[in-house]
């Protein structure tokens, strides 16, 4: 088997592979920058919690209209927004920490989702919800993913400055502007949009993977936020492409294959990264004059 057969031919020969690649590119471009901000704001696990919070909305969409991704996406967005905004408002108005208030809301949401699903109880379709199916992208789903990615990038550009200042010095932003709280809530909404996007392709359990793992990889290669975002996007694209090839050649399920490749890149970065990588720490070189 030539290199061309292994790496390029699957995408030339099969339309479902081309669609999967397009979906992965859209997910990487929008999700990785969001993941970088999640990491910098110490909200990596918040993203994971939010991924569970969208389940009841997706389940209701599924009950109402079957395996219609548009209905499930809308339901997921509504559930995710509700949880994100309620949790954000409770922590902003009462001083309860964001993680504590979010934990309450996402657990309630997850319990509700499981209850709704058990009322209907068809487990095979539920597997699709839980683990996604990036190899079964129809036109409508692909358009929804691309539209969500476009919205994410535009909105992120709009709130970028207050979001960065809110992350580094929230008290300062409060004393000069009212933009802090809206920027935070809009950011949470972007997290939800990208989770729903990821959940189409990777399922609720792995949706957050293409956001958080690339951010973690980038942290070992750059000290600058622009660099972090660029490296995160590139490593998400690499993981997506390599994961699809791996899944095609070995019959691994595609979602887990993508996340496993990203995890491999992450481990390599932990070892060899130029910023705080283990090898660098073990062999730091002689100390400098000044």
């Amino acid at each position, binding site marked *: 088997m030539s290199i061309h057969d292994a790496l390029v031919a699957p995408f030339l020969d099969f339309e479902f592979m081309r669609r999967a690649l397009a979906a992965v590119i859209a997910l990487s471009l929008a999700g990785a920058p969001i993941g970088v901000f999640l990491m*910098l704001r110490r909200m990596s696990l918040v993203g994971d919690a939010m991924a569970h919070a969208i389940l009841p909305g997706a389940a209701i969409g599924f009950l109402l209209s079957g395996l219609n991704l548009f209905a499930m996406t809308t339901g997921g967005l509504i559930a995710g927004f509700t949880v994100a905004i309620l949790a954000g408002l409770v922590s902003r108005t009462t001083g309860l920490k964001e993680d504590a208030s979010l934990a309450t809301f996402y657990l309630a949401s997850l319990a509700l989702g499981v209850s709704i699903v058990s009322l209907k109880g068809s487990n095979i379709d539920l597997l699709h919800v839980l683990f996604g199916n990036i190899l079964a992208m129809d036109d409508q789903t692909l358009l929804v993913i691309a539209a969500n990615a476009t919205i994410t990038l535009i909105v992120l550009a709009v709130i970028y400055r*207050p979001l960065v200042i809110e*992350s*580094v010095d929230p008290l*300062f932003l409060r*004393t000069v*502007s009212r*933009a802090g709280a809206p920027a935070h809530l809009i950011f949470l909404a972007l997290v939800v949009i990208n989770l729903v996007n990821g959940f189409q392709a990777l399922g609720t359990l792995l949706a957050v993977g293409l956001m958080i793992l690339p951010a973690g990889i980038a942290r070992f290669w750059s*000290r600058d*936020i622009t660099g972090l975002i660029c490296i995160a996007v590139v490593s998400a694209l690499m993981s997506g492409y390599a994961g699809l090839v791996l899944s095609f050649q070995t019959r691994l399920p595609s979602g887990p294959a993508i996340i496993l490749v990203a995890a491999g890149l992450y481990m390599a970065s932990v070892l060899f990264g130029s910023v705080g990588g283990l090898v660098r720490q073990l062999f730091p070189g002689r100390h400098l004059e000044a």
Partner: protein
Amino acid sequence: MPAQITFRDVTLGYDRHPAVHHLSGEVVSGALLAVIGPNGAGKSTLFRGLVGILKPLSGTVTLAGLGVRDIAYLPQIAEIDRSFPISVFDFVGTGLWRVTGIFGGIGKGSRERIAQALASVGLTGFENRGIGTLSGGQMQRMLFARVLLQDSPLIVLDEPFNAIDAKTIDDLLALTKRWHREGRTVIAALHDMDLVRANFPDTLLLAREPVAWGATAEVLTAESLAEARRMCEAFDDSAHACAETSRQSRAA
């Protein structure tokens, strides 16, 4: 001189317990005022009320012709995430918020202003360093550079010289006096009495309630300092509602 800040019977506190109790008075425009008092006297609380982070439990604070967001405020304990990957140049540049807002660009003129601000605090050459690499004194110099860029007519500094070496204090004090000469109103919470005597014309001695307020030489007497220490008693969980306030509300 017209009043820049007017406190009218201001009480500030947490969970109904006052930390600043019935403060009335004026800070004239262009004043250089030191706020002194023991730990727990309410200095930081007063500043938080002034810049609008804390709502008064009663009374009003009026700023002549200014919004609370026009004040340049340097908090005592900054909530800065020092691990955040941002350069000194970009961090100081956020001081231009009043000019740039959310979307405004940082053009050539702004870049020069940022470079000048860094030069004024002795941080030239630190532009591309991450903020996490700065020492405590360098951090404070950087925060002063941001205050400088905010170009505000009212500057509030909460214990700006804590844990800072003598050379840094001299440099930052010189900057504070420059702001005073430029006609800005500057209020600073301080603990070093000699520094206050030598540099600040006016002083407010606070011990939950104002003990003395006026020319520094008249405020900083042995009696008033002892009085302040005595008055600074603790938060009492079973405290009664303030009688003075209820008398006033009956009268009203």
